[in-house]
């Protein structure tokens, strides 16, 4: 991949939120996947689970090469979260809006990844939520009370345009942060 600049971003969120699917939806080449059979159906009824990482690449029209890293969702693989976050510029946090634990999942994953890298921006994607889901505003407000200001979108992670919206929003947040840093320096 020949690129004018390169960025590394993280896709995270609980098991079943759609991280692997989201990366598959936008990666220019078939992503690297480490899915294995999920033997713990009692916790999440899902055939497979990611145990190390997903990895994909995306070359944007402006020449930016984006490396897409997906984390395992289960907390017992949290050692991978810290490894994967090294050098990352931001986090796309995916939540399954149809689960009763969605708000708690959002809080716990946002706080966990804020602890790993306090400066990295977040963009939130809520899947399986109705288009006019009023909880999206509630999620944003709940995060802001914890000092995390992040755009929240309802998304279908199978839809390339929806996932690209999350990535492009994250890049916009990064550019705004960069502008503020430059402005403060002068």
């Amino acid at each position, binding site marked *: 991949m020949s690129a004018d600049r390169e960025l590394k971003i993280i896709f995270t969120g609980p098991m079943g939120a759609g991280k692997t699917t989201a990366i598959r939806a936008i990666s220019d080449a078939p992503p690297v996947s*480490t899915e*294995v059979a999920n*033997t*713990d159906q009692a916790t999440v009824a899902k055939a497979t689970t990611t145990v190390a990482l997903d990895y994909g690449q995306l070359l944007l029209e402006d020449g930016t090469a984006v490396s897409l890293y997906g984390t395992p969702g289960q907390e017992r693989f949290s050692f991978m979260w810290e490894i994967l976050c090294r050098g990352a510029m931001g986090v796309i946090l995916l939540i399954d809006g149809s689960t009763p634990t969605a708000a708690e999942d959002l809080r716990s994953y946002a706080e966990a990844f804020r602890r790993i890298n306090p400066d990295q921006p977040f963009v939130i994607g809520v899947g399986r939520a109705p288009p006019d889901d009023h909880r999206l505003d509630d999620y944003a407000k709940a995060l802001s009370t914890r000092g995390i200001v992040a755009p929240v979108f309802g998304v279908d992670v199978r839809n390339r345009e929806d996932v690209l919206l999350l990535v492009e929003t994250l890049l916009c947040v990064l550019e705004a942060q960069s502008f503020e840093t430059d402005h403060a320096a002068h």
Partner: protein
Amino acid sequence: MQPTSQRFDTAVTEAVRQQLETFVAGTPGTTLAVLTSGDGFEIAAHPRGLPTVQRLAAMSSSLQALSEAMVQEAGLVRIRNLIIESDGGTVIVLGIGKVTPRLSLTVVASGDEILGRLLWASRGCCAALEKRLLASNA
């Protein structure tokens, strides 16, 4: 489907643990042997109750999956062994043959153990575990 850690009855799990105990006792330098499910659950270990075992089980699952992805990416067909050599010793992760869902044996040995002998003994342990587990599924 139950978690793999609970899929085998107590007698089978105890037989596996005894096999691991025999392996550790008979393989100088070996400090830990863990049978792990493909998604990183501890099924049995010797010694029992070490605080690091659950994390090591999860890590061995991650490493094995990542190694498989790397082997496929490089066009090298299929992973056989995962060997990590360090200043303090060696970690080996081996798949357990035909048992499904996938299981693996993780062996930790101190620096004194000779790699070839450790690998040979670990493969023997895998074969014994495979035979026992397949018999329990029959």
